[in-house]
């Protein structure tokens, strides 16, 4: 899932970029880790110091059939799951979210932050024996950057590309028009074999269903809508992956996948909160399986339309936040496995300023704020109004998002107690999005999910990013926030940049363009035999080697693993 969630909300690149990387220093270890995950959170590391067992098959689940296995055209989680084992990236994240060498053995950044020089590994080869060359890299980056390719993830990452060219037999140079602090993360990117794609239509190339691997596994068979079988790539140039074979079953239904796990027909599956709760009491589950849970960089929020007559005033938006009992949501809905946030970052991100406390659940203060803003209940009908307009709104939620629906139900109840009538309305995703992008809504449940570490608040909160240009669906506008975000994007010194982002955090907490709700967890269930699991804020799949480092142990994990990520403290 390297790439899985990386799209939309955080369009850009990822990771934390070090100031030092920029000084044309040789970098295999360019980036000082962003405050490493506190041990108390219990991220799992079963790989360091362990001896893997080689051989056997791991049976994995896909929620949908991949539409393509073209690494540049991928857009869905299921595609990323498979491609992640077939195609190595130029760079990868390690479990501390540092960028580490992948196909590239080293890289340098020019002092102006605009030019990157990569050196490819000499030993890296495609499964047909041809070496991975700068020609492949140049072709891939040019392809991804060209609008005709329609590359959903990588297209936007290379929008500012100025030039890309080979620089010797193993090196290539990429130059951008502007410096951008989080640019480096764009290179967590797989390559296309130029010798097979040259001159072909990218979208219709037969290789999209028969990809050429340069990674630990190679595709053996693919039955559409049913299963994919991967076997070890004999020509893989890196360390041998423990499993000889990986099968993927396409199982759209969660309940079916859970039953398959219990029957031993799957070794792993993602689970939802309801199933996770069930695993605690299900003796069948405890006997064969374990649940893994860890905090991610995902967070949920309720967008408020800052242009609507109801939420144009920051006092009203703050009041709305104070009427939502987020602590109760964390305790009840997430069973303690979530953390209330005070701003637009996950607590695991260095951009999050732990010194900014969330606004309290405080209906009395909220009532005062609403009164100050001119919303009062003059006729005693329990409903606030202002200049003849009743405070009655609709809160939208995408259908099928059960957690989101329960959050907005809680909000509706909270607002109701504060004299605001709120009705919850569930809409199919596309209809939901159309309302949001046209600004035809008052409040809506949204989430930010990113499989990379880029915290750049530009896409969601900069006033230049109002739809249709961008993703600022709150239509928020704060000149000071805009200035700080612009400065942070240009600031190549990490310490200074984080200071700027911390100020953005504090300002957005006070300005409350949205109700920031909570940081959430990734939930997964495994057969106990599967070992070598590593979790991080990027989840089980966002770091290298991820699933390519799992193995089957004859001695299964014994005690139920304490859910990584611990409880809310």
């Amino acid at each position, binding site marked *: 899932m390297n790439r*899985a*969630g990386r*799209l*939309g*909300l955080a*369009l850009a690149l990822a990771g934390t970029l070090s100031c030092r990387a920029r000084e044309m220093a040789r970098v295999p270890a360019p980036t000082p880790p962003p405050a490493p995950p506190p041990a108390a959170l219990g991220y799992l590391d079963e790989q360091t110091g362990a001896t893997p067992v080689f051989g056997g098959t791991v049976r994995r689940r896909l929620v*949908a059939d991949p*539409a*393509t296995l073209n690494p540049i055209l991928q*857009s*869905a*989680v299921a595609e990323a799951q498979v491609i992640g084992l077939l195609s190595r990236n130029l760079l990868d994240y390690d479990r501390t979210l540092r960028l580490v060498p992948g196909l590239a053995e080293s890289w340098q950044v020019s002092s102006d932050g605009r030019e990157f020089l990569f050196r490819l590994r000499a030993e890296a080869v495609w499964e047909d024996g041809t070496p991975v060359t700068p020609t492949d890299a140049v072709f891939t980056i040019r392809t991804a950057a060209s*609008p*005709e390719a*329609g590359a*959903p993830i990588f*297209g*936007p990452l290379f*929008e500012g590309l100025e030039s890309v060219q080979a620089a010797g037999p193993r090196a290539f140079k990429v130059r951008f028009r502007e410096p951008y602090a989080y640019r480096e993360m764009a290179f967590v990117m797989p390559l296309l074999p130029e010798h097979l794609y040259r001159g072909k239509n990218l*979208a*219709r190339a037969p290789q*999209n*269903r028969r990809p050429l691997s340069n990674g630990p596994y190679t595709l053996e068979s693919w*039955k*559409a*809508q*049913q*299963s994919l*079988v991967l076997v070890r790539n004999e020509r893989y140039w890196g360390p041998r992956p423990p499993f000889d074979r990986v*099968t993927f*079953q*396409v*199982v*759209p*239904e969660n*309940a*079916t996948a859970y*039953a*398959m796990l*219990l*029957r031993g*027909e799957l070794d792993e599956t993602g689970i939802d909160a309801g199933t996770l709760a069930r695993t605690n009491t299900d003796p*069948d589950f405890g006997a064969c399986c374990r649940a893994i849970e860890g905090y991610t960089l995902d967070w949920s929020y309720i967008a408020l339309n800052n242009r609507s007559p109801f939420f144009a005033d920051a006092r009203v938006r703050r009041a709305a936040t104070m009427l939502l009992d987020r602590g109760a949501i964390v305790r009840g809905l997430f069973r303690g496995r979530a953390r209330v946030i005070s701003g637009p970052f996950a607590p695991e991100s260095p951009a999050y300023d732990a010194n900014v406390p969330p606004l309290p659940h405080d209906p009395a203060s909220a009532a005062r704020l609403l009164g100050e803003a001119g919303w009062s209940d003059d006729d005693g009908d329990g409903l606030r109004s202002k200049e003849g307009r009743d405070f009655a709104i609709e809160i939208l939620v*995408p259908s099928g*998002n059960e957690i989101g629906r329960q959050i907005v139900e809680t909000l509706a109840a909270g607002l109701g107690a504060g004299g605001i009538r709120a009705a919850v309305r569930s809409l*199919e*995703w*596309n*209809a939901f*999005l*159309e309302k949001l992008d046209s600004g035809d809504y008052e409040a809506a449940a*949204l*989430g930010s*999910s990113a499989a990379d570490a880029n915290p750049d608040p530009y*896409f969601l909160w900069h006033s230049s990013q109002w*739809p*249709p*240009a*961008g*993703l600022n669906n709150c239509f928020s506008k704060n000149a000071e926030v805009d200035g700080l975000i612009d400065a942070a994007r240009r600031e190549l010194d990490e310490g200074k940049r984080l200071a700027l982002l911390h100020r953005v955090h504090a300002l957005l907490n006070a300005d409350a363009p949205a109700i920031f709700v909570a940081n959430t967890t990734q939930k997964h269930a495994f057969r106990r035999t599967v070992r070598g699991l590593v979790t991080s804020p990027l989840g089980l799949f966002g770091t290298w080697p991820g699933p390519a480092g799992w193995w089957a142990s004859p001695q299964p994990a014994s005690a139920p693993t304490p859910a990584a990520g611990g409880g809310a403290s």
Partner: protein
Amino acid sequence: MGLAAAGVRAHTGGGRGSFLTRYVLRRLLLAVPTLLGIVVLVFLLVHLAPGSPVTARGAEGGRRVSARAAEEMKRLYGLDRPLPERFGAWISRVARFDLGESFVDRRPVSTRIKEALPYTALLNGTALLLALALAIPLGVAAGGRPEGPFDRGSGAVLFALYSLPSFWAALLLQTLFAVKLRWLPLYGVASDSYGGAPGLGDRLAHMVLPVTCLTYGTLAFVARLVRSGVAEAREADYVLAARSRGLSRRQALWRHALPNAMLPVITLLGLLLPALLSGSVIVERIFAWPGLGRLYFDSILARDYPVILGLSLLGAVATLLATLAADIVLALADPRVKDGMLQ
């Protein structure tokens, strides 16, 4: 009901064969504007639904694409052109038996349909045959003695079955037979058998649960239909006459009452047959069955216009053909219709 539409007016002259030919031809001609109407309607519905293949891309994880990328993708799919132009292009392709290519994986729509069709046809065909095979004897037995203990008992059970939601039944059956008892496989078309083809027994075992889920509803409905037909016919003169000629009760019911009771079932079959092609979204999802229902559902969520249109067209054609076939069979089976034709 097919009769009125069929326009069974007195056609003088010509034998039954030539009447049938003309009848079929006319029905086929009438089907063309109907089909066109359906196609236009579906095309409009699909394109006027909120969202586009571009916005649908992020549905999975609440992810989104930037405005610029969205514009590029729209241009790539030809969605930047006006609706009438798109319709014209689509219709002219369809006239050449080309359904276009899927927006999702850029493969021909016909390929994707061909991949899924056999699975759905197998599942739904088996379910339909099974439902008929069970419903008819059940209906005759119940209708033979209306309000008798068997009629009342089977009636209660059938009504319960008819109202049982299939997703619930599917999960229940999975839990019982696949997880607890482990008698039957949980999902899919066949077990993993790397290297060899799965055996017939394995394939049949995989069909048991989904076929059960698809069967019981139809079974209940058809059985009640047969039952009421038989119950009505058993009082009819021709059945009494048959009894008085010395036929046993059983013979009279099966040979004389049942054929009359089957006439509405034939009409109903015309409506059930297209289901062979449309598939069942819920059952195919739960049992991870790679059929047309799942393809249709996924395509709608993804706003994969060419696939949605291709499947809708297929469904419309199948419905029209099946109703036509049912009317023809009805005409042949019903002596009154036959006489009507000849006079």
